[in-house]
């Protein structure tokens, strides 16, 4: 493993101070892990054809030319900066949750992902914008491809202090109306909200022809419910406290939580929204790979 790759591990990443450093470490770690530059030939407009030679990616074969001339030609692109990515970062109180085995809270994890994506996107001279929200939009930064734009993005991300409850539905509606340029919308949230309302908001993005990727950021404790002894669960986001024996309730909770996840997945699938589950104890590589795949779909 490349030394840089260790920064994809949340535990290691937690030891790094500063979001910018974390973002760079993530991206460089990720890039060093792939054999071939994953963003070669992306983000560019078509320029010319060239003849196929063994080893070329078949995905870029121009099949129309092959149909006409029976010869393989590859499409050649020239760089373009017209891909706009909007990062929608949930900064509600529930995102502050961090269980013992997790190196980062959900918000920190989401911040890292957002920062890394921003860094990556700006590296590719694409535009990236940011919206931080809880019950309302706390910050909104218009997309830009200027590398100096990164600092502003990171600054806003770090300033996000989770205090309130999530209200994703209205926020998504509002943002769908306010965002001007079509592009890719990446949602970073635990989605602890009314699912139909949230899905209605996401549907609005789709209606406005945005590609949407949902990064569902969840703590491992929320997914596995590993509690053993009698526990007083203190509610976040104005929820009441519960004193219970977690072992007896585990199955019921997992069922309940599984139904929530299922509802979200199903909603996303029906809207052709990419759903990516991000466990805060798993590598950040998943997030970057998912982004790049989505981007490819978007431009392809």
């Amino acid at each position, binding site marked *: 493993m490349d030394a840089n790759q260790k920064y994809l591990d949340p535990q290691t990443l937690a030891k790094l101070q500063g979001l910018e450093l974390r973002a760079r470490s993530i991206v460089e770690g990720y890039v060093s892990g792939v054999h071939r530059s994953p963003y070669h030939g992306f983000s560019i407009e078509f320029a010319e054809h060239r003849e196929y030679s063994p080893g070329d990616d078949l995905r870029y074969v121009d099949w129309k030319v092959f149909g006409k001339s029976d010869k393989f030609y590859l499409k050649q692109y020239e760089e373009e900066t017209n891909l706009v990515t909007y990062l929608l970062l949930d900064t509600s109180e529930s995102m502050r949750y961090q269980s013992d085995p997790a190196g980062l809270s959900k918000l920190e994890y989401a911040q890292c992902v957002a920062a890394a994506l921003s860094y990556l996107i700006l590296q590719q001279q694409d535009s990236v914008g940011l919206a931080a929200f809880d019950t309302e939009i706390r910050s909104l930064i218009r997309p830009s491809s200027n590398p100096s734009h990164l600092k502003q993005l990171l600054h806003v991300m770090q300033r996000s202090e989770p205090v309130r409850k999530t209200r994703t539905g209205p926020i998504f509606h509002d943002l769908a109306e306010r965002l001007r340029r079509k592009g890719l919308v990446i949602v970073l949230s635990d989605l602890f909200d009314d699912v139909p309302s949230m899905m209605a908001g996401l549907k609005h993005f789709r209606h406005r022809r945005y590609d949407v990727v949902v990064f569902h950021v969840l703590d491992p404790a929320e997914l596995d419910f590993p509690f053993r002894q009698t*526990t007083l669960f203190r*509610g976040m*986001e104005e*929820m009441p406290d*519960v004193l*219970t024996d977690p072992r*007896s*309730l585990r199955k019921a*909770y997992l069922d*309940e939580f599984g139904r929530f996840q299922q509802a979200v997945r199903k909603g996303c699938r029906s809207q052709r929204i990419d759903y990516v589950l991000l466990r805060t104890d798993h590598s950040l590589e998943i997030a970057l790979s998912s982004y790049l795949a989505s981007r490819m779909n978007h431009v392809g």
Partner: protein
Amino acid sequence: MFAHAPLLAFGFANLLMLGWLAAAAAPILIHLWNKRRYREVRFAAMEYLLAALRKNSRRLRIEQLLLLAVRTALVVLLVLAVAQPYFEQLGLPFVAGGRTLKVIVIDGSYSMGYKPTDKTRFDRAKQWAEQIVDDSSQGDAFTLVLMAAPPTVVVGTPAVEPAGFLDEIENLEMPHGGADLPATLALVERICENADAAGLDRSEVYFLTDLGRNTWAPQLGQAEEAEYEARIDHLSNIASLAVLDMGKSESENLAVTSLSSSEPYVTTAREVPLSAQIRNFGRQPQNHQLVELHVDGRRVKESYVDVAPGEDTPVHFSHRFDTPGDHVVELRLGGDLLEVDNHRWLSAPVKEHLRVLCVNGKPGSGPMTGATDYLALALNPDAANPLVEATVEPEVIAESALLERDLGQYDCIFLCNVAQFTSSEARLLESVLNRGGGLVFFLGDQVMPDRYNRELTGEQGIRVLPARLGEIVHEAQYQYRFDPLSYRHPLLDVFEGREQSGLLTTPVYTYYRLEIDPDAKARVALAFDGGDAAIVEEAIGRGRSILVATECSLSSVDPASKNPWTTMPAWPSFVPLVQELLALAVEGQMSQHNVEVGQLLGESLEAVTTRSTVDVIEPSGDRSAVRLALDAGGSRWSYSDTLQSGVYQVDIGAPIDRSEAFAVNVDTRESDLAAIGPDELPRAFSTHRQASLDEADTPSIGQRSGLHKGLLYGVLGLLFFETLLAWRFGRGVQ
């Protein structure tokens, strides 16, 4: 076929272990403690946790209660198992496992003969004993003890083969005596102490008894009481003790407590008054009870009596026997549920007349001058009256003729003023006593005290005198008078209240001071006013020897004062005194024919028979041969197996060639059927329940209960169940 409901009780071998039942609260306390001791976490996905809680709260509560119940039950079962519970059925505690020595003690006191149903309590006890054996496990061993007086170990070596043991139980017969509990416990203790050596793990002792107060509340001295209690404590440590109560405490019973002749000897010459006592041992008055008098098996008289509860009622009959020989008188009650004490027998050796030999130590020169002249007259005062049939036939011989006589044919021998006795004579006199005859010694001026003391007081090995002779007491012009000593001795019964009989005014001038060995059983019947003994008597052998300190004639005269030793022979008290002396002397003849259960039968025979045995025919009809032993003057037999009441017939072969009857009666203390209550039982027994079995027809003793094993299996099952539940409910180890 009988609807006998077994009585069940429940107990624990390790009662103290039950204290650990408090540990059953542990799961509840832990549960409560856990609820108070919790960790606190902030949690984001509360919406889903709350939803899960809402939907499952009822199920969770039920699961929690179920788990709690299982864990509590687990602790309870474990503690119960360690406490070794047992089922106690009809007083029998059962503890499972190992080889057990079962000591079966059957009460052999005759109150067990009470027959409330078609079987006596003794029969029922045997039935229960057989049931105990039948219900025992393979490898158990048995011993059988009959609690009688004295107790008998019927099977002492632990029997592992039930068949033979059951035969012993079947053949067991109830003796007609009492029961000695302390002695029985000592026997049982020895048996239990040897259980280890026989490879047995523990001992169980079963007392099958009616809990009669006479047996179970023994009257003991302080030291015996302490020993008795210590023995029970020790026994309870080495064995489990169970009592099966075979009777009811308030059983009614009427018994003939005595039957006797008012005459010390019976002759064909006169009618004999017979008196008996009927006692009501119950709580209800028994009125118009039929009492029958049977003589030699024939009913001769009957009467009806009313007997108040706890009271004695005397019954009087009289009968004249037509022929000499042993006759059997039986008093028979109408009958109640305890048959044994409804009869009483009296064996009466009837004679034509009593044969008395008077040995004259100082023959007189004229009428009424010899040493025996007054005595012979006093023995048969009606000799001159041809209309009166004599009951006593005195025969006077000289001192020198003593050896020539067959003393065996005399019932009593009066020895009057005899100077001395040789060893041969002493042996003859001893044989008289051994045969139940009587000896009466009168002293006088011919007597050589040193020879008396040497030959007759045991110095030469023969003891026929109840006291030694001391110096002659005489005081000039002084008349010694008799002191009746408050008429305590039966000899003086006839004089009590009859001062005119002259006993107290009988003048005595000279007498021998009698020296009584303090260790001897001799009793002073009459004393002098100075405190010296006047008449001393003692039962020696089977007969009785009486020593009178002075003369029975006027022939002994003080040389100085010319006064006779006493003028008693001329005094009105003389005839009754001589008659009473004779009666007392021959009393043994009747009493040796009338004994109580357990006492020895036997007699010395006046000759050696041609056979080496005599035949004893028991009341049941069984005949047994008893070996004869040589005696000084003839031979002797004795028979100790008098366990049943009734008449024992003894056939003696030639040349004596006679049949004698011996009456063996019960000691009627055992007729009191009062029983002790369970709370009066010694503490070692009290943990076991008793059941009254008078009404039970068929014994039914439950099988061994492997209860603690079952409980342990239960614990194991609950452990699995708890694990399963905990896993199922999500509380188990993930």
